[in-house]
């Protein structure tokens, strides 16, 4: 039993951190928020560092690393709220392709992803008010040489900045994750409309398929993609948790720095117990969230029995507890923290978004209870 990072893993995190800082750090997120599209720039840089190859299997030109290793990358990305479909491409799509793809599909997409030439996202929701999997409603009709997709997916991340989107659709009347077939389609075939989002670093879209015919786009078995999808969503959850852990760590650092510098009543405010103890509690939750996230990533990578439980533990803890921690960071900064120029809100908005996007904290607690009790 050894729950530490290897030297190599530590070095990887450091080099990612150095690299992202050299690229401007959180300024990339700010530019994205202000309306620029920085995804190409970010991705080209990441590709130069070989990061998109991380989770791609060795035989397809990747580095064959597992979700834990990937999480270390996401943690650093989260520290600067890095824009770009990194969790969607590397955390969600690559393992799904590796699991379900035909040799042909793998040949076509995996090396391209590893080289940084292809980005992917996922279009889950047909109804933005419903939970998964109930929110998956689109029906795919079989045609002569493929399927016809008809309907509007919503809350699709980066729809205009990716080359492919995983689209789950129902091919059999069924509930839950049953009767779902996955499609790997070019979003250019659909009409994308950007939504007004709380978190402006990660754009979301409505993606309308107007009776779009797709052939060769089916990923995995007919009617039987649900199971793999469920696990892919778990991996996406862990990827987001890792980003939140990175953000939380950063929030603690920022509160500590401000606590040392900012003076009130002629003292640094970090000397006041109210501030000091609040930061101590933020640190506790960050460390707890990190442990839960690393373990969930490890459990998935090693196909442990408690993997699903571990994912839900990490997810509600990271979204709910860390969500409040980001608010504490803003609070520690006083009125300054409440301004657009302070970075606190970037993380807070991300946490508030993710707290509902792949299962609410309550849903994840219920999932834990259902497994454990």
């Amino acid at each position, binding site marked *: 039993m050894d729950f530490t990072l290897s030297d190599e893993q530590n070095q990887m995190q450091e080099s990612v951190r150095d690299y992202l800082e050299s690229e401007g750090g959180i300024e990339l997120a700010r530019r994205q928020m202000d309306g620029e599209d920085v995804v190409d720039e970010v991705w080209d840089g990441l590709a130069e560092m070989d990061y998109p190859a991380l989770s791609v299997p060795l035989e397809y030109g990747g580095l064959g690393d597992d979700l834990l290793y990937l999480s270390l990358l996401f943690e650093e990305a989260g520290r600067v709220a890095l824009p770009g479909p990194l969790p969607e491409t590397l955390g969600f799509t690559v393992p799904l392709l590796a699991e379900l793809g035909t040799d042909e599909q793998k040949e076509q997409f995996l090396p391209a992803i590893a080289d940084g030439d292809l980005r992917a996202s996922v279009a889950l*929701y047909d109804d*933005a*008010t*419903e*939970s998964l999997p*109930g*929110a998956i409603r689109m029906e795919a009709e079989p045609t002569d040489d493929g399927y016809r997709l008809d309907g509007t997916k919503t*809350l699709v991340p980066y729809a205009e900045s990716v080359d492919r989107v995983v689209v789950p659709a129902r091919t059999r009347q069924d509930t839950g994750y049953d009767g779902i077939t996955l499609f790997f389609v070019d979003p250019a075939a659909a009409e994308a409309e950007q*939504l*007004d*989002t*709380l*978190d*402006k670093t990660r754009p*979301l879209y409505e993606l309308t398929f107007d009776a779009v015919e797709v052939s060769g786009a089916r990923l995995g078995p007919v009617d039987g993609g649900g199971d793999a999808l469920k696990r892919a969503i778990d991996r996406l959850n862990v990827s987001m948790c890792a980003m939140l852990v990175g953000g939380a760590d950063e929030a603690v650092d920022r509160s500590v720095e401000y606590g040392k510098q900012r*003076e*009130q*009543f*002629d*003292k640094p405010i970090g*000397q*006041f117990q*109210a*501030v000091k103890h609040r930061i101590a509690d933020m640190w506790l939750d960050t460390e707890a969230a990190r442990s839960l996230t690393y373990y969930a990533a490890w459990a998935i990578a090693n196909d442990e029995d408690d993997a699903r439980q571990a994912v839900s533990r990490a997810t509600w803890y990271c979204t709910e507890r860390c*969500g*409040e921690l980001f*608010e504490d960071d*803003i*609070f520690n900064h*006083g*009125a300054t*923290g*409440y*301004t*657009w*120029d*302070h970075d*606190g*809100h970037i993380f*807070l*908005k991300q946490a*508030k*978004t993710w*707290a*509902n*996007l792949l299962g*609410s*904290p*309550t849903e994840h607690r219920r999932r834990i209870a259902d497994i454990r009790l």
Partner: protein
Amino acid sequence: MNFDYTDEQEAFRREIREWYEENLPDGWIEGDRDLPDDEDEREQFLREWQRKLHEGGWAAIHWPEEYGGRDASLMQQLIYQQEKARVNPPPERSEIGVDLVGPAIEGFGTEEQKERFLPKILNGEELWCIGYSEPDVGSDLASLQCKAVDEGDQFRINGQKIWTTHAHKADWCYMFTRTDDSGPKHHGITALIVDMDQEGVTNERIRQITDEREFNQVYFDDATTPKENVLNEVDEGWEVAMRQLSFERISLSQSLDLERRFDELVEFCKNETRGGTPLVEDPHIREKLAEFDTRIQAAKLTYFRNVSKQMNGDLGAEASFGKLYDSEVAADLHRFRVKLGGPKAALWGDDSPNGAAKDSLANISIRIGGGTSDIQRNIIGERVLGLPKGDQE
């Protein structure tokens, strides 16, 4: 103890209610409460509303009649607040002037100052901002550095103010300046009234995390104001600042607003479904709603208790209760509202379910502004309970 209202009080309530029904913008009571998106149109809208309020005699009911108020009793003020919370009218353009500047001028101003400034606060003709915080001075007013130099018939002002709400559209600034730094920190502060429309005053709007820009940085570079615009004596501004909140008027409370918001949330939970089931049938949500129901009633009842004490002449420090308690309840309520939004909580603006995202962000500022929750706990510990002051303060 008695929670009933007299016939006279009920008549007053009816008077307000009827006035609102007749005068609120079309559709407002029915729930169509969007303000114009365009800033100029919004200003025009608010100006019109302020004019109506003034004409109806509702712009400042707690002010003396001679200055355009109604000499309203605390009970009348409370009833007015209740009715206001019920219909959630448009914001009052002159709110800062009415609530904060007016009382200071009334309490410390000369007869000329009162006649010059008070009427135009009421009718909304002149807008005010308050120069209180400075970049390095958050909760600690005594450390302020913005300088005003006595030049005989006028003061020359140099320095910077920050978090100045509405400075970008204000005609006047009621501000605190340093006129003497030779003595103890609390001495040598002077309250000034300064014309915003002069070359020496520039301002920069601050973008808030809600993407609004209500706050400002205001720069004073050789700005001036004539001597007659000093409020109270020179160097005696600390007294004005300290008495700021002790004017004979009802303390404010979020609790009445929270009650309406809770009602709205219950409606939302009845209408919004997940998997075909209304949220209001979810056991977890039911229990949370019951918890909020109680905490909000506790806030409201304690507010009533404090107001009642005030009516009976007991100006206890208990007023410190509401600022802290209410804003903690509000913070939890708004966070909960966001969670109820489902995946759609990722959206902003009109698509934000229940408008919760913005409220939950805006609430942070309520916990920070006017003395953070930390400061409120110090105040309760020290002033209400008599615990020893920390070295720090």
